[in-house]
């Protein structure tokens, strides 16, 4: 019991430390470009935390998360710009709507297994994406929403700079992490992990596995939706292109690179992948002057393949293993005088 409390405390103090670190960053980094990268990392982290809940804890893959991200973005964009509804209400409406859609669609989808499930989520994502492109009157079609999306504001404070927006985005990302952490360490979280451990035994202990898979699917879609809303109010313009299959794959890559079985995985994965992509964008033109942004996509695929082959459990556990190995060698060295 005592050990358990200690573990919990350690977990909590890690989160507090990390929060302090995150909120002190914008005072140290004054470069707007870096700050904007960090804002995007925060938004993507929110999506990937949800995806990790689904993949790491319920053991279900989703290749449709970019579309749920898009649902949030379009809900915010359309409701605020076309109908003049308060942005905060629009975010809420997007989240509730996405939750309802994914929950209802999830009922038949989660009767499926493995490959079929992956394909069904992919199909759902593509259908939603086609709707973004085709419903021109509502969404503006391929060229995007014609009217500008307003910035978010808190009271009189308009969040129109990277510096201001950073705090909102990361407050939500951290809330997403903390809430996900709560889920993981709850009755529901254990039920979800038990599905992963042995679905057979989980059922025989009275766990209604289908119900929980469905709920966590809807929750992770809601995460994506909120992140999408934040994206829309940050960029203030949306078109269908960021919500296609490639983005869904990108989210899976981030989740997998970070590692699925720790709440720190998403941050690490998103940061590693985003920084690498950004770094390549600036380094490669210097090495090969005639190259455009094309290298990004190659590297992206290669990272995925290499991670999966050499670090199948992701960076987090890869790093942990390195650390444990180092500590083990150090202890051995300490023992032998």
């Amino acid at each position, binding site marked *: 019991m005592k050990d358990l409390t200690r573990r919990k405390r350690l977990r909590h103090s890690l989160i507090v430390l990390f929060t302090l670190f995150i909120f002190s960053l914008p005072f140290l980094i004054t470069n707007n470009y870096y700050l904007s990268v960090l804002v995007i990392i925060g938004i993507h982290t929110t999506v990937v935390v949800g995806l990790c809940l689904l*993949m790491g804890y319920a*053991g279900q*893959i989703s290749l449709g998360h970019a579309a749920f991200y898009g649902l949030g973005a379009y809900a915010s964009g359309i409701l605020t710009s076309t109908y003049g509804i308060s942005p905060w209400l629009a975010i809420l409406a997007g989240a509730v709507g996405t939750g309802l859609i994914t929950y209802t669609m999830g009922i*038949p*989808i989660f*009767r*499926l*297994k*493995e*490959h*079929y499930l*992956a*394909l*069904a989520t*992919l*199909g*759902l994502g*593509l*259908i939603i994406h*086609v*709707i973004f*492109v*085709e419903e021109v009157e509502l969404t503006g079609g391929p060229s995007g929403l014609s009217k500008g999306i307003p910035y978010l504001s808190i009271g009189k404070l308009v969040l129109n700079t990277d510096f201001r927006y950073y705090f909102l985005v990361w407050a939500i990302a951290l809330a997403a992490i903390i809430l996900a952490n709560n889920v993981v360490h709850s009755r529901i979280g254990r039920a979800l992990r038990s599905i992963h451990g042995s679905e*057979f035994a989980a059922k025989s202990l009275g766990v209604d596995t289908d119900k929980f898979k469905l709920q966590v699917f809807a929750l992770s879609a809601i995460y994506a939706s909120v992140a999408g809303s934040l994206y829309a109010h940050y960029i203030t313009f949306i078109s269908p292109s960021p919500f296609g*299959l*490639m983005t869904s*794959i990108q989210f*899976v*890559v981030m989740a*997998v690179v970070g590692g699925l079985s720790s709440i720190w995985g998403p941050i690490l994965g998103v940061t590693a992948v985003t920084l690498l992509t950004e770094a390549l964008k600036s380094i490669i033109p210097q090495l090969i002057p005639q*190259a455009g942004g*094309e*290298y*990004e*996509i*190659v*590297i*992206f*695929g*290669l*990272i*995925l*393949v290499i991670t*999966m*082959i050499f670090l*199948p459990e992701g960076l987090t556990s890869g790093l942990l293993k390195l650390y444990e190995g180092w500590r083990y060698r150090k202890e051995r060295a300490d023992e032998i005088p």
Partner: protein
Amino acid sequence: MTLASELLQYILSGLTMGGIYALVALGFVIIHNVTGIINFAQGEFVMLGAMFMVTLVGLKVPTPLALIISIILVMIVVGLIEFGAIRSARKASPVTLVIITIGLSTAIRGIALLVWGTNPYRLEPFTKGGPINIGGATIIPQSLWIIGTTVVVLVLTYFLFEYTYFGKALRACMVNKFAARLMGISPQKMSLFAFVFSAALGALAGIVIAPITYVTYDMGLMLGLKGFVAAVLGGLSSTPGAVIGGLALGVIESLGAGLVSSGYKDGIAFIILLLVLFLKPGGVFGTSGSKRV
């Protein structure tokens, strides 16, 4: 045009695309049956086939020779990939393997982008001549080439599986991998063979479709997915199922695009997919046997 001839028109163009889907689906099924992997890079084989073909024809290589060289080149590339990436991850979980093939597909597409750029290429039809009139509907000669190729390939595949050692070994692996190994069939060799064979099917699909579409670095994405849908419609483990699934998907898609809305063409394929999965989770032609515990 009367409704009847209009319908015939849709069915004919549907069968043309359906033939392509069937070839891609067949590749999926063969790899899945032999290795258990869902190969998301299947569509890229199609793109590579088309790209090599366009390049070779551009270099004034005669069409039949270019066709053969293109197929062989894709087989070599895929063989190397199987050897390098798939083999080292043999013990990974199914989800990991899916992610690996997604990564491979992304990487191949990226490399194609570097080599061939973003501009679309065009390939001249194999034979010249105007559209042919059939019962009020028209069909271009290249469509006949596609349908013909599909039929020939299916017949060849059938004979390969029925009458050659490799085919029999592949089938043995499909039915029971463990027993196949006991019989001295190396699953590694079979995995390589399955990939290379699927590569040839994909490349051929890409080559025959090239004249009726734009050849771009990202053409494989949708073709691959549609092929996957076709394979699933057919039950994912049945080769005749894959072919029927492909043709059915092509026709339904074409009818849907013509009668409902062409913008929703890609959506239709996936709506059908979801409906089929929901109503019959094992695929239309699949057997949904219960697992023993």
